């Protein structure tokens, strides 16, 4: 099997280093300021947002600050780089013979910015420039100094649009990775919250951070993740979705094996369970791994609401996903193959509805499902202002009019509408998308082989899911493999005081979360009163 795949997809022989040929001309900095600046502007294609500010430093040293306009804080450059150097220049106006230590002098005694660094090679210097550093150069220096003045434009922290809650924190991740890390750190103030950084993407140079709780997360998972991250050699990472496809266990599956979320509280909760978070700069969607199938049905609100209603809601979500996968195919199978399964009165009413419909049930369902998918896609792209037009067209024209025109039966409209609504119940959007795809396959199976086809399809899915793993964790944990201890937070959600251990297999061994006798009790005095009565 593997051999065949290899043969049909030969590895591309193109070297990934093509783009950096420009940087190979001269990598060393020269001692001439003028030459260095020219080289920088040559290498950056004379881009107009590279700003060079030349001035005279102490001991009549001619200097320049180079920075990327828009990526840096200009006030900071003015106040903490240029101003201190100029005032030092006023204090020491005379030229001195020995300028050898001017570099350390400026770095240690004059500059008032936070982080400075020394770069010996030109490509590094330019990279630092594009990361939002101000680069300080001077006549006679064979090295450049970088000072971190990065200030990218970013959105402020607002409520996440894709996962809103009634009760619970309302802040969401932003596109800025440092803000996102701060949002998590604010929730877990522990030195054990470790952060490992990687820069991925040869061109985009995207910051990627791995966040986990040392001692709680499994080292094997973290190591495996880092191994997979280090293996990536691509030109760009623009969103965590890019990364997801590189690091997931299996690509050819309908099921997501990583969860993504916009909610800092979900991520914090996941980290406390021993999961690992992967943050990517430039997107509010944080990846969480490893996950199991049942994690997709957990909303962070489950932990804030009462446990009984949370349990009920989880069961409801399972049923909703099942409905959104199965309902149209079951309807097709029953109306085409197994009419005897329906109670007689229902059968008669269905038959009466379908009397004037010219198409077979499968075609009817397919038509309506596709219509719905189109409506939904249009709804996302449509400008808000004309959004209401879509609902009118969708509901009245395509729903009611289609029934009246005798194109589809009313029952089919109900089935499709119910399916559509059900698919929005599941909190994780990516598993709902899987259900959408599976729905069409099952409809086809139901139309050709009836119940038998649907069952075969489901059995296939079951075998497939049993074989799936997310970073080594079987996908259907805790059901198969059966892990009784994890049931407390999978289908049901037990009260907080009963969650004494962290989930096994996901968290490291020996995961005791809290003391085991934390059940709240009425105060002693109340009890005594009761006995007196």
């Amino acid at each position, binding site marked *: 099997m593997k051999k065949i795949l290899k043969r049909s997809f030969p590895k591309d022989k193109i070297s990934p280093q093509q783009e950096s040929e420009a940087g190979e001309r001269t990598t060393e900095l020269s001692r001439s300021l003028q030459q260095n600046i020219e080289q920088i502007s040559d290498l950056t294609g004379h881009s107009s947002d590279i700003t060079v500010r030349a001035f005279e430093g102490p001991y009549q040293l001619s200097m320049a600050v180079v920075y990327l306009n828009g990526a840096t804080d200009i006030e900071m450059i003015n106040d903490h780089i240029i101003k201190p150097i100029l005032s030092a220049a006023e204090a020491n106006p005379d030229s001195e013979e020995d300028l050898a230590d001017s570099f350390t002098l400026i770095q240690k005694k004059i500059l008032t910015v936070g982080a400075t660094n020394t770069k010996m090679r030109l490509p590094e210097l330019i990279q630092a420039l594009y990361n939002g550093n101000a680069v300080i150069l001077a006549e006679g220096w064979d090295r450049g100094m970088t000072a971190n003045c990065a200030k990218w434009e970013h959105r402020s922290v607002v409520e996440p649009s894709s996962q809103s809650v009634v009760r619970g924190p309302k802040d969401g991740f932003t596109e800025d990775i440092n803000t996102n890390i701060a949002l998590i750190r604010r929730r877990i103030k522990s030195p054990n919250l470790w952060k490992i950084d990687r820069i991925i993407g040869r061109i985009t140079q995207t910051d990627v951070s791995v966040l986990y709780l040392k001692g709680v997360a499994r080292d094997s998972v973290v190591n495996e993740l880092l191994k997979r991250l280090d293996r990536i050699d691509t030109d760009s990472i623009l969103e965590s979705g890019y990364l997801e496809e590189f690091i997931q266990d299996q690509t050819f599956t309908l099921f997501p094996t990583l969860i993504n979320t916009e909610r800092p509280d979900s991520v914090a909760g996941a980290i406390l369970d021993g999961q690992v978070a992967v943050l990517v700069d430039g997107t509010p969607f944080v990846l969480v791994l490893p996950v199991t199938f049942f994690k997709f049905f957990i909303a962070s609100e489950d932990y804030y609401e009462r446990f009984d209603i949370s349990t009920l809601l989880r069961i409801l979500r399972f049923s909703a996903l099942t409905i959104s996968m199965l309902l149209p195919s079951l309807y097709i199978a029953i109306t085409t193959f197994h009419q005897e399964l329906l109670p007689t009165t229902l059968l008669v009413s269905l038959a009466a509805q379908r009397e004037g419909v010219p198409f077979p049930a499968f075609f009817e369902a397919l038509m309506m499902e596709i219509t719905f998918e189109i409506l939904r896609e249009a709804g996302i792209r449509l400008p808000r202002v004309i959004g209401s037009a879509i609902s009118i067209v969708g509901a009245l024209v395509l729903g009611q009019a289609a029934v009246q025109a005798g194109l589809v039966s009313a029952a089919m409209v109900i089935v499709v509408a119910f399916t559509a609504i059900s698919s929005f119940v599941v909190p994780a959007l990516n598993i709902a998308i899987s259900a959408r795809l599976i729905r069409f396959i099952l409809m086809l199976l139901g139309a050709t*082989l009836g119940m038998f086809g649907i069952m075969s399809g489901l059995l296939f899915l079951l075998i497939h899911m049993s*074989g799936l793993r997310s970073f080594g964790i079987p996908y259907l944990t805790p059901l198969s493999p059966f892990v009784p201890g994890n049931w407390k937070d999978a289908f049901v959600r037990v009260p907080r005081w009963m969650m004494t251990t962290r989930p096994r297999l996901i968290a490291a061994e020996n995961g005791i979360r809290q003391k085991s006798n934390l059940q709240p009790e009425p105060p002693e005095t109340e009890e005594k009163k009761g006995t007196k009565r």
Partner: protein
Amino acid sequence: MEKISKYQLGTMIILFLIGSTPLFELGIKAKQDAWLVVITGMLIGFLLVLMFLAIQRREPDHTLVQILIQYFGPYAGKFVGWIYVVSFAYESMRNVRDFGELTIMTILSRTPIFLIMLILMLLSIYAIYKGMEVFFRVAEFLVGGVIFFYLVLVVMYFITGVAQPDKLLPVLENGIRPILQESLSRSIWFPFGQMMVFLMFWSHLDDKKKLSGTSIRAYFIAGFVIFLMNTTTLIVLGPQVADISTVPLLQAVQLIQIPGIFERFDVLVILLFYSGIFIKATLWFLAAVLGLAQLFQTDYRRFVFLVGALIYLTAFIPPNWQSHLEIGTIVAEKFMLNPILLGIIPGLLFVIMLIRGRGKRAG
């Protein structure tokens, strides 16, 4: 080597033994005492299970084929090993054909049988190709649902009042003889003696200490479910109807009616039947493939397609279901397949193991 957990082993034993057994009325030759046949079959079959377990415990890291080669010598051992591999494939083939015929009979009357059997075979191949561990996890997933649905059926029998326990009377009308005869000739071998197939899988258990406990518990849970379904079918249909019916469980379930809401529970039966046969056919198939791989000492995935194709093609040999059943009876009774493979050879093996074991200890 792939490892399976005690839960996976236990659930697989339960599903494998249940298989499609509750669909048919075990021991109906003993008329209204069929339920006693199940109990005696289960208890006598337990002795066989104890022997299989004893064999496994003497060689905890080896499968049946490896043990045979070790104790019968390379030639005789391999020969017997081949017989077992063929018999496993044969059992799988029987399940596949049963499945095709019953599906056509019950839900898809106009679909060609080759398609139905092909789909089942492809699913089996897929499951085995994914690996033993994955297949055992499938069983783990299904077991809860299967037992739950069987219990639902039992509860429904009683709620709707179709169950009439007095159909079991008179107990022991013809004495104990027909019961013993029936259980010794049939029910201890099918399904209970088929526990033998786990000699191919027990060595994969990750915690060897749990071997006997898990297996015995699972054996009795499965036995209880079979007994329950057997008895309820009997008290719903009565011995006469149960005897002539092709699929007694289906017929019994069709009597359940809660007017207006649930009038047909057939789907549930088909569901149970599907999962039962799938598990059973695939496990026999897997045993055959594993045995073959151990005879040739290579990876078992190499043989999946070959054995699968053979099982699929041989399933077409009987021209119709009647002859399929007839062949089954001939093989089982004329050639004494079950007693020889499930009783005599393992017994012989065990005796040799005992003698050799003593010899070793003495030496």
